[in-house]
């Protein structure tokens, strides 16, 4: 199979370039990650992140034929050749397919992603009805792979100011949690022309999410709460 890989090594002094690679591999039942690792076995200078290789850790997000995907759950046979693999868009490239995720993590941290409940801790669990728990479905499963945020033009233009789809989805995960008491402060935290309102409902994030989550929907819910609070 034919591949075109984005290569960049800061130590070489060269600019990023595309490398053509031919790999003898039977695509049946294989994922893109299998191919990338096979290429790495031939040429160990190719660098990429990977861990769980089953789509739950979020390490190996890359841009494949233009789309952000997790290499480990992207069936090789589905891809059009030459398979072009590049790093996630909009983040500084450290090397090859590895980007600096810090701008992404910084936005994640900025929404205070932890449960806030200053009430006395009960001896047993805090109760939560299955209906209230169901509100978290589609919000807590995020694996922080950054496929959505780096597919979002608003994040490309303002990565330091716009929280981005993943961060806002997490913000909603805590706003929606019946056990969290800081809803008002959380809304304050995101109510900002840049932090929240750079979202223009482009919905690239929904298209990109490998877990089938819907950040746009969550952002819409946040906006509704803000409007409700105002009027």
């Amino acid at each position, binding site marked *: 199979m034919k591949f075109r890989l984005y290569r960049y090594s800061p130590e070489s002094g060269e600019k990023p370039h595309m490398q053509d690679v031919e790999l003898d591999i039977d695509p049946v039942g294989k994922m893109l990650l299998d191919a990338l690792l096979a290429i790495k076995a031939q040429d160990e200078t190719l660098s990429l992140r990977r861990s769980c290789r089953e789509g739950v850790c979020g390490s190996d997000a890359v841009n494949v034929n233009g789309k952000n995907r997790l290499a480990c759950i992207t069936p090789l046979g589905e891809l059009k050749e030459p398979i072009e693999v590049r790093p996630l*868009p909009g983040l500084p490239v*450290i090397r090859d397919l590895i980007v600096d995720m810090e701008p992404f993590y910084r936005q994640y941290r900025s929404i205070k992603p932890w449960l806030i409940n200053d009430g006395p801790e009960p001896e047993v669990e805090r109760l939560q009805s299955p209906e209230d728990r169901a509100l978290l479905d589609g919000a807590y499963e995020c694996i922080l792979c950054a496929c959505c945020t780096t597919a979002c033009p608003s994040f490309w233009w303002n990565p330091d100011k716009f929280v981005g789809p993943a961060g806002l989805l997490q913000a909603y995960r805590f706003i929606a949690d019946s056990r969290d008491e800081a809803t008002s402060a959380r809304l304050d935290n995101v109510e900002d022309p840049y932090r929240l309102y750079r979202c223009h409902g482009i919905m690239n994030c929904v298209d990109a999410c490998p877990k089938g989550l819907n950040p746009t929907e969550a952002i819409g819910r946040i906006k509704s709460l803000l409007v409700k609070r105002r009027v």
Partner: protein
Amino acid sequence: MKPIARPVYLDLLRIYLPLAGWVSILHRVSGALLFLALPPGVWALSLSLSSEAGFLRMAGWVTHPLSKLLLLLGVWAFTHHLFAGLRHLALDVHWGTGLSHARQSSLAVMLATGLVTLLAAWRLFT
């Protein structure tokens, strides 16, 4: 040994833009066009209402193929902005926010806009 300037991959021609993304960026483009058309529009109105001569000059210009083309662009911009805007309003009240619905509504916006623009072209050029 912090590398000084890291490259950023952001080749807009290679990065896949889903249909909803196209609807969205065209919504922005059409909005910008309509904004730019505002002062000329007011000027044209003022000319056409100023006097009989002004009105005739206006009417004369309108028949010019170039202005017809501009008019057609305006029709497209207005229609797309309207339909895409209605779609956004629906999304704001949480209608059709699922991925497949969003794709369908994007397609609908593109098709409807195309249809209206074609009708306008037919009306203008035949």
